[in-house]
């Protein structure tokens, strides 16, 4: 039985409207399923909503009806009303660029449907931000703050780097939490559950964003179920972009929701602190051989002609876009090759002001916002005969959607492929 406060009980009784009542019913049921005893207040949320492709199962456009059935588990149609006022809510990655649907081969009809859905939730309190790296534009939960996010790499980032508290959960659960402002007090919301228990020592390269992408992918492959990883020693000091990349691939090959990095993240000033004084369940080394095995899993063999290059999974920071612009300056993307570079529209606007967008466009590339090929699904990349991806998460996930060869490499190798129209092994 989940213990509710008087306020929560009143909400469950319907005193704050049916919209909040249904959302809290979902959260109470979720708490029972998990085995939680009470709820906690959520003050930040990012939500993967809009006309996402998981809604393709509906053949109507009545968003109130879709929203009620899909997120609220309610057969009765309930009008979308206000999300929790004390929870800062914004959108996660979107199903389409905010301005440009033609470059990514999506229909005007779909673009407008996505916009209409996002406008409805915007009116209900969910700001349109469309970022899977929301910390670059100010969404930062502080130490001890309870959050929900539908971006798995952001679950790891927010728990590990900011010391905030949240579980991965799921999209419907996060939407309901943002509406009623509550989530089960369970898992990583409780300090005792946050200690690491699997120690990783790094014996492979850890210099670049690409290296950290592969380290995360490899750790995820080796992490036992429910393990909480600690990166202990043997690595070169990472910055936030390298951790972003590591957490993104870690949360692709595993269910990790937190990843301590000794000497870097706040609950891991020492290995002992990260372990909470306990002995680790396992100590694992990531070797050059493991690293090479991961690369082989992510990148198809050999060389070959390519026609689509996508860079920016997860969404890039301003400085990475600057580096890309400087690299592309004076160069040309090969004819009939598409080069897509992904960020959110706030950073895109900064890239515009700084002239980076102009340089990228002059080279023949596109600086795009809000989305990525995996989220846009097959319609955006079905035409491609061979593609190049930066981002292990993207390269891994796109394989479920395509039979075309997929090459994976660091940003500059991806840009070289776009210029040559060819992947060189």
């Amino acid at each position, binding site marked *: 039985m989940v213990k509710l406060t008087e306020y929560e009980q009143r909400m469950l009784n319907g005193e704050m409207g049916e919209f909040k009542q249904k959302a809290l019913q979902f959260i109470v049921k979720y708490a029972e*399923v998990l085995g939680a005893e009470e709820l906690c207040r959520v003050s930040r949320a990012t939500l993967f909503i809009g006309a996402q492709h*998981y809604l393709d*199962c509906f053949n109507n456009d009545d968003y109130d009806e879709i929203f009620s059935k899909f997120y609220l588990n309610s057969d009765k149609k309930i009008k979308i009303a206000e999300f929790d006022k004390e929870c800062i809510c914004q959108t996660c990655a979107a199903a389409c660029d905010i301005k440009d649907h033609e470059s990514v081969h999506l229909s005007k009809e779909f673009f407008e449907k996505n916009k209409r859905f996002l406008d409805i939730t915007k009116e209900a309190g969910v700001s349109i931000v469309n970022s899977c790296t929301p910390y670059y534009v100010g969404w930062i939960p502080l130490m001890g703050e309870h959050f929900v996010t539908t971006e798995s790499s952001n679950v790891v980032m927010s728990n590990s780097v900011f010391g905030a508290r949240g579980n991965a*959960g799921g999209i419907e659960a996060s939407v309901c939490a943002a509406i009623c402002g509550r989530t089960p007090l369970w898992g990583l919301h409780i300090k005792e559950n946050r200690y690491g228990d699997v120690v990783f020592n790094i014996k492979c390269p850890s210099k670049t964003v690409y290296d950290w992408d592969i380290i995360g992918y490899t750790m995820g492959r080796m992490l036992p*179920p429910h393990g909480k990883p600690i990166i202990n020693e043997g690595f070169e000091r990472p910055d936030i972009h390298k951790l972003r990349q590591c957490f993104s691939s870690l949360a692709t090959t595993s269910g990790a929701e937190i990843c301590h990095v000794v000497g870097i993240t706040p609950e891991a000033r020492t290995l002992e602190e990260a372990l909470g004084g306990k002995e680790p369940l396992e100590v694992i080394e990531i070797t050059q051989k493991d690293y090479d095995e991961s690369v082989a899993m992510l990148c198809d063999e050999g060389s070959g002609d390519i026609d689509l290059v996508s860079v920016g999974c997860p969404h890039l920071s301003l400085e990475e876009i600057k580096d890309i612009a400087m690299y592309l300056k004076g160069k040309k993307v090969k004819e009939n090759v598409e080069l897509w570079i992904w960020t959110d529209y706030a950073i895109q606007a900064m890239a515009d002001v700084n002239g980076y967008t102009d340089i990228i466009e002059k080279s023949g590339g596109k600086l795009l916002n809000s989305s990525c090929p995996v989220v846009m699904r097959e319609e955006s990349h079905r035409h491609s005969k061979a593609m190049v991806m930066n981002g292990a998460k993207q390269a891994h996930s796109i394989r479920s959607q395509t039979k075309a060869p997929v090459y994976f490499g660091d940003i500059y190798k991806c840009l070289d492929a776009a210029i040559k129209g060819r992947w060189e092994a």
Partner: protein
Amino acid sequence: MEKIIIKGRPAMGGIAEGEAVVCYDSIAGNSGAIGDTDGVIHEKGSANRGISLKNTILVIPYGKGSTGFSAHMKSAKFSGICPAGWVIKRMDSRLGAAVTSLGVPAVADFEEDDPMEVIKTGDWVKIDGNTGVVEITRN
């Protein structure tokens, strides 16, 4: 015909039965790994690639990958394809969200027997989400 009984924590009420699909390495939640409209496992590298989840008892140790896991399962449910029930070795937030959203019976958190070792794909499994009893029949 062999009959085995194991017991876990009742996580979602109701009684269900069906053929077991055992997913030793879980199923990624990333877009495309589970078909939104066909309920088929499409995840590259999965031992269960090509298997439909329709009317199965999904035996799974943990959740992994994108937090989209529950949403893709839900989408398949609205398209008419849904597992009959869940056997979850140990509950986590990804699986908890999916169990809540799908609303089909679930038994989780097995302390004595490991369902991943006891149950084989193809076994007929009956679960009682009110008592936590899981009955496995093997031909």
